[in-house]
């Protein structure tokens, strides 16, 4: 069957996708719930083991308090009912509502991941262009090798080395955390303090993500550079810079936009490794610890927000495609 050539307008496409979003998120929730419950063990077992008193009676009491002794189907139905009222539930491990816990870590997560996104995309695109402009030269090779090295090096290694160099040896920046706990700053000094703490973790993550953008951009630009329209433009007498920036860039940036979209979608997942190395209080580390503690309410809450974000961002990227390349139609 040949591809559909019927054109639909962007706004009706967006509307269709938004309407799909609700059942999609719903389905994702159900599947996540079932998937989590496939994992062996539950929150009661974990808590009891930690407390040092995992007697059968104590665990039964805990299960009853957490609602884990009910049949799975009933638990699922109750959970979905609460979700419809946007009640994300209670984390029994932390003794706090899930929403409060997530909101407390949302700010730091967005700060870290947002900064990383901006830095890695901007730097990645720029370096990719630079590399492609003189393809085959030593500059190109150098940038390509650096990109490869930074992607293939374990994040904990990069993070720790940055701490050793910039914090311990040079004493320019703090080692870890989001702020200086002993100081209890307020106002502008607090903003500066947080900014200083943000530098190393954001740099570590950016180096990693940047590599992919550099390589993608370079490959895409090289591909465009061989196209007929570029030869035509050159024949018409346009400057190389003009060709690159106004024509090639717009066509080459498509895979970068796709990948950036995937990265934005995974924003709420944070980075477990960077958050743990730098003691950055993000959602990544929270989700990770929750998985080991079998705190499913909290995990499902994070997954729910993540699902919403993914659905929305994918939609936005698809709309962006049509704007970037008018030949793409929904």
């Amino acid at each position, binding site marked *: *069957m*040949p*591809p*559909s050539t019927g054109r639909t307008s962007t706004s009706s496409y967006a509307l269709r996708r938004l309407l*799909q979003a609700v059942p*999609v998120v719903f389905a*994702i929730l159900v*599947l*996540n719930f079932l*998937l*989590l419950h*496939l*994992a*062996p063990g539950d929150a009661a077992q974990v808590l009891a083991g930690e407390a040092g008193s995992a007697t059968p009676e104590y665990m039964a009491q805990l299960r009853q308090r957490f609602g884990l002794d009910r049949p799975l189907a009933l638990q699922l139905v109750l959970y979905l009912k609460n979700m419809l009222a946007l009640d994300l539930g209670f984390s029994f491990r932390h003794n706090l509502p899930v929403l409060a816990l997530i909101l407390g870590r949302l700010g730091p997560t967005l700060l870290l991941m947002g900064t990383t996104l901006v830095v890695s995309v901007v730097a990645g695109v720029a370096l990719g262009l630079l590399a492609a402009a003189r*393809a085959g030269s030593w500059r190109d090779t150098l940038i390509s090798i650096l990109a*490869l090295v930074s*992607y*293939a*090096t*374990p994040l904990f*290694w990069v993070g720790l080395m940055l701490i*050793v160099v910039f914090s311990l040896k040079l004493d320019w920046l703090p080692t870890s955390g989001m702020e200086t706990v002993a100081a209890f700053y307020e106002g502008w000094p607090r903003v500066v303090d947080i900014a200083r703490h943000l530098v190393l973790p954001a740099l570590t993550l950016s180096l990693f993500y940047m*590599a*992919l953008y550099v*390589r*993608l951009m370079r*490959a*895409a630009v*090289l*591909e465009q*550079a*061989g*196209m007929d329209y570029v030869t035509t433009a050159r024949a018409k007498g346009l400057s190389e810079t003009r060709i690159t920036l106004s024509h090639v860039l717009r066509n080459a940036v*498509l*895979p970068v936009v*796709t*990948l950036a*979209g*995937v990265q934005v*979608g*995974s924003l*709420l*997942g*944070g980075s*477990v*490794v960077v958050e743990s190395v730098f003691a950055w209080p993000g959602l*990544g580390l929270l*989700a*990770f610890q929750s*998985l080991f503690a079998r705190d499913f309410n909290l995990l499902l809450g994070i*997954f729910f927000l*993540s*699902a919403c974000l*993914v659905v929305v961002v*994918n939609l936005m990227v698809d709309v962006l*495609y049509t704007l970037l*390349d008018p*030949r*793409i139609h*929904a």
Partner: protein
Amino acid sequence: MKRFWRRFVRSRGGVLGVAILAVVLAVATAAPVLFPGSPFRRVDRPFAPPFGRQLFGTDVLGRDVAAGIAHGARTSLTIGVLATSVAVLVGTVMGALAGYYGGWIDDLLMRTTEFFQTIPTFLFAILLVAILAPSVASIVFAIAVVNWPAVARLVRGEFLAMRGREFVQACVCLGMTDGRVIFRHILPNCLSPIIVTGSLSVATAILIESALSFLGLGDPNVMSWGFMIGAGRTFLRSAWWLCTIPGAAILLTVLAINLLGEGLNDALNPRLQR
């Protein structure tokens, strides 16, 4: 076919990549001969630095690092290459079908992708390994599952862009089957991003395996580069060679696959200017 090989051999990078991979595979196969016995046994005092009695020194329990690299190559290559291949294969097919056909097929496939995108990558891998019980097979499966959505989205984007081109319309007019159009005409033009993400993904695969091993979710009876990095992590500042040497091995492998990929791209995509 001959044209393909001729073009491939012309690419210096591609040939170099193949050569390096061949060496790595040779070491992996010859491991039981080069380093007989178990790589887990103690051979000398712990923390012997490299270039002493052992080529790459020893680790915290006196195990030979060089033996670990040789024996671990097989596991790490299996995990890295296999997991990535599955991810690339599945992702490419999903993305191609979604991008080419559009409409409800696109919707269905992309909504499926969104489910897999929801759970953060690393967590998803841990969850799957925890459910399936740690083993090389479950690790390969878990890594493949978390990696394919990105590939699918990329390929779909490329196909959406290609779909409206004249050459595709020409193919359709000529009466070519959809399969032929997708695999013989559009796909070769979309290879660049696939190759870039694919080759880099091998590194991610091995590093995820390392993180899983560090957490105790790997198979403690099987030697791998990831296991060595995990075990050497605490001694980063004192015994640098424990992390650096397996790290270098991973880097070399990824570089080789990257070069190989570029060679393939040169051979398949003649319009590419160098």
